[in-house]
């Protein structure tokens, strides 16, 4: 039980840390991120600023919450939704034949393409899997509490 909890926490800290770092990079370079969002040609220009302002903070907030263990499941739910959205956007962009920088942040620049899809899919599975695991863990924990509390 303890080992199970430790693995979940470690996976959460790693994923949360990565998202916090990716969000921070975008937050520190807002105009470059806005340029990346604009290049996808999916939003009207009037909304690109909103997306470029909000997305990095969502990544940072969810990443930080997950890493420090505050409302972990909610943070995972948010990251799963975000990653699902990113994956859909990348696939649509590939389908439209646009060759643009993916603006994904982290350690190196990469274009929209199979590598970005694979990376996103891995993170999506990681976040969704961990959410399911956390949910089962919480349910099991509550059952144990109920059994211990009963006379």
């Amino acid at each position, binding site marked *: 039980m303890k080992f199970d909890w430790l693995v979940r926490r470690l996976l959460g800290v790693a994923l949360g840390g990565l998202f916090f770092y990716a969000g921070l990079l975008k937050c520190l370079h807002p105009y470059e991120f806005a*340029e990346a969002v604009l290049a996808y040609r999916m939003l009207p220009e*009037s909304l690109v600023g909103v997306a470029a302002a909000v997305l990095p*903070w969502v990544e*940072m907030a969810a990443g930080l919450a997950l890493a420090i263990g505050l409302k972990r499941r*909610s943070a995972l739910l948010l990251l799963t939704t975000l990653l699902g959205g990113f994956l859909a956007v990348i696939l649509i962009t590939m389908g439209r034949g646009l060759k643009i920088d993916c603006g994904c942040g982290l350690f190196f620049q990469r274009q929209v393409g199979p590598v970005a899809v694979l990376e996103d899919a891995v993170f999506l599975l990681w976040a969704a899997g961990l959410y399911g695991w956390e949910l089962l863990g919480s349910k099991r924990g509550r059952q144990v509490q109920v059994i211990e509390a009963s006379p």
Partner: protein
Amino acid sequence: MRRLWRQDLAWAGLILGLAALFGLVQQWPLVRQSWRGELAALLSQARDQRRQEQFQGVKTVNLAQAYALFQQGRALFIDARPADEYVELHVPKALNITPEMLAAGQDEAVAGLAKDREIVVYCGQVSCDLALQVAEKLQVRGFTRVMAYMGGFRAWDEAGYPADTSK
């Protein structure tokens, strides 16, 4: 289980709302100018400023100047985009040299080129930095007449200037 899920969703909504609020407040100038339809001008200004600091000393040319150099036939064109984009379509007789091919200690890509050869480097579009990166690396290697064409291949192609798929 359903109750847990509902709780998670509610907290996720709260985190999302707070993050959105912080983001909008922190980047308010960007949000406001984008809303007013001034984003392109703002990004162009920010890009120029960053490039001036990052690529000091790299000479640049616009579309008309690049085309004039192409017509004169003396300048060597270098395509700094990834190989798959170069193969698709490029300026006739352009060489494909990416920044990675000019990484520290690697000179094979430019071996045999005269250092005083007129060179025009380009990449995909106005927002990409690959042309500036390659031009800077060439200058570091002692090439004296290097220029970065800033409009990118997209503007070249849209203007109807020559392009081909051969190497």
